[in-house]
């Protein structure tokens, strides 16, 4: 999303949020529709379960509606929302007594439709499987910061909101998580000989 289109979306969000604050549920429905995909995927990344993610995201939207009174006029809606979603999803996962898993499916074909030789494609698939597997062995904080950045492509402000940390610490958290991922992959390769 470009800067200008991003500003336009933020402006539209702000208008819808103001109308929703005044009880306009149709405006809120529109607001939800604009963010339901990222909310659901964020919840899915945390819970690892589609049904649980749907429940968490839906409940988070209801909670966010009732908390709109505390939402600062003109502030970006998405980071604020993702904080509510991530919190709800974490609580649900804890209540269910589940450890965070990385239940992601990865497409075999390139999204861009690029073709490669069978050997190159097989090697790339092997690398992806290896990367995903190693990622799954990291601690939750590291997995989430990497997932938010590279899988959901959240901004730093959105990542900070979802992680529940100060925006200034996101870069260092990501850097440390990547370093640990790199280290773990080297260990795995050494172990494999």
């Amino acid at each position: 999303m470009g800067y200008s289109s991003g500003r336009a979306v933020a402006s539209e969000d702000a208008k819808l949020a103001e109308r929703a604050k005044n009880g306009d549920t149709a405006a809120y429905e529109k607001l939800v529709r604009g963010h339901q995909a990222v909310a659901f995927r964020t919840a899915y990344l945390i819970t690892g379960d589609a049904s649980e993610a749907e429940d968490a995201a839906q409940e988070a939207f209801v909670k966010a509606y009732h908390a709109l009174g505390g939402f600062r006029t003109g502030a970006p809606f998405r980071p604020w929302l993702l904080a509510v979603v991530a919190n709800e999803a974490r609580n649900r996962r804890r209540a269910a007594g589940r450890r965070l898993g990385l239940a992601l499916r990865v497409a075999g074909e390139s999204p861009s439709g690029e073709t490669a030789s069978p050997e190159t494609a097989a090697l790339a698939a092997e690398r992806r499987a290896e990367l995903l597997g190693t990622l799954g062995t990291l601690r939750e904080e590291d997995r989430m910061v990497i997932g938010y950045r590279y899988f959901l492509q959240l901004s730093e402000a959105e990542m900070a909101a979802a992680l529940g940390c100060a925006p200034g610490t996101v870069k260092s958290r990501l850097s440390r998580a990547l370093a640990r991922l790199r280290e773990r992959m080297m260990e795995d390769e050494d172990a494999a000989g």
Partner: protein
Amino acid sequence: MQPDRDLERELRELGSRVEYPPTPDLARAVRSRLEAGEQPAPRRGWFDLPVVRWTAVAAVVLLAAFPVLSPAMRDTVAGWFESGQVSSSGQAADGAREATPAGGDVTLKGKGGSHAAEAARPSSVGQPMSSSGAGEPPSGVNLGYGEPISLREAQTRLGGSELLLPEALGVPDQVYAGGPPRNGGVVLVYRARSGLPSMGDTGVGLVLTEVPGSVESAYLRGGTLPVAGAEEVSVGNGRGYWVPAGRRAPALADRTGDLPGSALFWERGGLALRLEAGLPKGEMIRIASSVR
């Protein structure tokens, strides 16, 4: 790890290939809940941990409610425990079933909080079809089938299949979605009335569940049809499977099949259908044949 490996580029590439489940239509569901005046579910505590919750619920059911339940409902409650697992179907506290000793009824809580079953006849196909009040007597049961939705929304929940209604009965009193079955189904509920007796103490006369797919994929716990306990019958020009009241076909039973009535399973228009009612087989088949 190879020194030339660009980890960040690989992560971006991996991220672009992640296949997420389809995003559900949250916007409509959220609006329905808000317009029904629903508040967020209360924050969960330790009591809501599944093991603790179900242990407590089991204790309440067995020690307090069991003696005062009608025989049919006792069979139902017993069936939950026979199954070996009282599943929350991913809904944790909000999908719980509880017995209410004082009333002697079994109360089922729907997703996102309880929905009273006292529903008005719909004033519009675009409005959620369950709302409290409206002068109707409460049936004393919540259905545990998810959240109330409109007929129009029910249509959108079925993907490319067309929502089917029994011509013999017309428009349902309530429509639900989001509870079990989780795989995109909707549940149409008809209140007990003349010619449609209440199933046990529930006040519910008939329930029609519609799920995209086959009977096997929608309702069967593994295996293939036919299954023990179900009688093969003809519904229209197709096959159906009939399970009389009081008999259980374990492979065909699930949480939403616990009402103390007969059940009829068949397929039509890309949907797997289940009709539950306290009616004779012939009458059930007649109603099922009018579903189109």
